[in-house]
């Protein structure tokens, strides 16, 4: 991405505008997250809203600041593999929960 071809240099002005737009969106979404938390919604809804907003913010950072929106296939392959293992890791508590292993009776 950082090969300083003339095409790249020409694109950079357009990219900077995108960075500023993403910055404003991230700021707005942060305020929204805090505002929603003040509504004291039921926990399942609050968790869903917080995670959805965080995922949108994270996607904006990864897509535009980390340039994942236009990356090479190998990077996508590495991240896809990482995502699989990450989901397995996060599913471990859920599996434990379904067995009722640690639930207080």
């Amino acid at each position: 991405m950082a090969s300083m071809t003339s095409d790249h240099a020409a694109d950079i002005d357009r990219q900077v505008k995108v960075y500023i737009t993403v910055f404003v969106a991230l700021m707005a979404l942060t305020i929204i997250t805090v505002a929603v938390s003040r509504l004291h919604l039921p926990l399942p809804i609050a968790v869903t809203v917080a995670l959805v907003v965080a995922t949108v913010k994270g996607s904006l950072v990864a897509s535009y600041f980390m340039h994942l929106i236009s990356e090479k296939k190998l990077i996508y392959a590495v991240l896809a593999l990482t995502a699989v293992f990450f989901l397995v890791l996060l599913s471990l508590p859920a599996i434990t929960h379904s067995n009722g292993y640690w639930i207080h009776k």
Partner: protein
Amino acid sequence: MDIPYTVEVRRDTGLTNGKIGIWLFLASEVMLFGALFASYILIRTGAPTWPRGDTILNVPLATFNTLVLISSSVTMVMAWASLVRQRLGTFRIYMGATILLGCVFLVVKYFEYSHKFENGLYPSTNNFLAIYFTLTGLHMLHVFGGMVVNAYLLGPGSKLWKTNPEWFTNRVEHAGLFWHFVDLVWIFLFPTLYLL
């Protein structure tokens, strides 16, 4: 002997070695924080009661810190964009701002931690504080590590610009990928610990 594929891309990967290297490192970081997030879920769902973060933690300070870290991500990417535009002076301003914002984040965290300790709230107090200090402490170490690399690129590391500007630009890009990842982790830590 020169380090290979710092600027030119490898035929087999289509990437420079530094680029694939930093992404593999970030993949390992995802698993590191993933393990701690999984621990958090396990501990929280297994607890008979769990406090809302805002009853113990300082949400306004953390919100401010979130805005600071997001701003630092923008200055970081602007620092890289300045190099692509061949403007070393502008790069220095943006990189300096990134480091300064990192300092602000750490200072705010210092006040947050101090306030907890003054009130007798330690990692050993309860499970909530244990996972809070573990996750935010590890995150702070990452912020500090990123600042050290950024300071090197702003200072002695910037000599490379004179001899091999493209390589230097790639180094700044890779440091930026790490910095954005640290921002991304905080984006999930903030609601998880402070707001739920």
